[in-house]
């Protein structure tokens, strides 16, 4: 049997651990960093090409960034088996797959000549999907994710107000709101372990 003071200590420990593990991403944080940088590179490339600041060939940088992000996701998915997968990680990966699936579906429609959104429209759809992913994580009590989601929505507002700078705005939103969130989350995870 244990004393009341010991019971309090045990309950406090369980509270601390559950709070830490239920609102923290373990595997997912790196996806945010990689996809945030890749998305920012794509939007920025598009904007620079549109502004004739770089030659059209620079489109390959955007494609390269996307391919690297896909390759990383496949590799990380396999090596994640070595660590830990929280319920939040699993749900996040599901929402991410749905968001990516919808975006790539729209992208495929565009490739076949539907021309519904235009290049920057696709970037905006991807940013919108990214904000949904972040707000979904925020629902689990992660305030950092809410901050990231708000930053991305703000970038969409700026892109809408100043369409001539849309690529820069979306790029900044993904870099700060998405990749930045991933970095902060990784730092929080390493601090929690220390």
């Amino acid at each position, binding site marked *: 049997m*244990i*004393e009341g003071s010991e*019971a309090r200590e045990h*309950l406090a420990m*369980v509270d601390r651990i559950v709070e830490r593990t239920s609102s923290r991403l373990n595997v997912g944080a790196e996806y945010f960093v990689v996809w945030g940088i890749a998305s920012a590179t794509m939007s920025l490339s598009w904007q620079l090409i549109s502004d004739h600041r770089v030659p059209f060939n620079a489109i390959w940088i955007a494609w390269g960034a996307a391919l690297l992000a896909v390759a990383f996701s496949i590799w990380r998915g396999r090596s994640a088996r*070595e660590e830990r997968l929280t319920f939040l990680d699993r749900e996040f990966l599901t929402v991410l797959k749905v968001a990516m699936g919808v975006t790539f579906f729209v992208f495929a429609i565009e490739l076949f000549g539907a021309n519904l959104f235009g290049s920057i429209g696709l970037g905006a759809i991807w940013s919108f999907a990214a904000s949904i992913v972040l707000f979904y994580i925020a629902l689990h009590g992660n305030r950092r994710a809410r901050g990231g989601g708000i930053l991305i929505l703000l970038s969409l507002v700026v892109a809408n107000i100043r369409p001539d700078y849309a690529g820069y705005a979306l790029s900044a939103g993904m870099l700060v709101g998405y990749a930045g969130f991933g970095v902060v989350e990784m730092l929080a995870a390493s601090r929690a372990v220390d």
Partner: protein
Amino acid sequence: MDDLLLSKIRLAIVAELLASEWASFSELQKSVATTNGNLSSHLAKLVENRYVEEEKSFVDRRPHSRYRLTSLGRERMIAHVRSLQSLLEKDLQS
């Protein structure tokens, strides 16, 4: 009160697994902050009593163990936390 969960390390292991699909040995060691041998013996007790399920495999030719909480382990943990809470309430009333 669950005798198996009266140990602070075993309680911490089960709490770590509560919000996780699974966790590897090394992840648990980092979180629970104990020695290899100590963690192994506590995990063995939890596995033996079917609170925790162990899965052994090879990753990059290295042996790898990962653990998940069973439904029995989850039920016992919830009951144990309730017992701790009622003990605390009684303690506060007296």
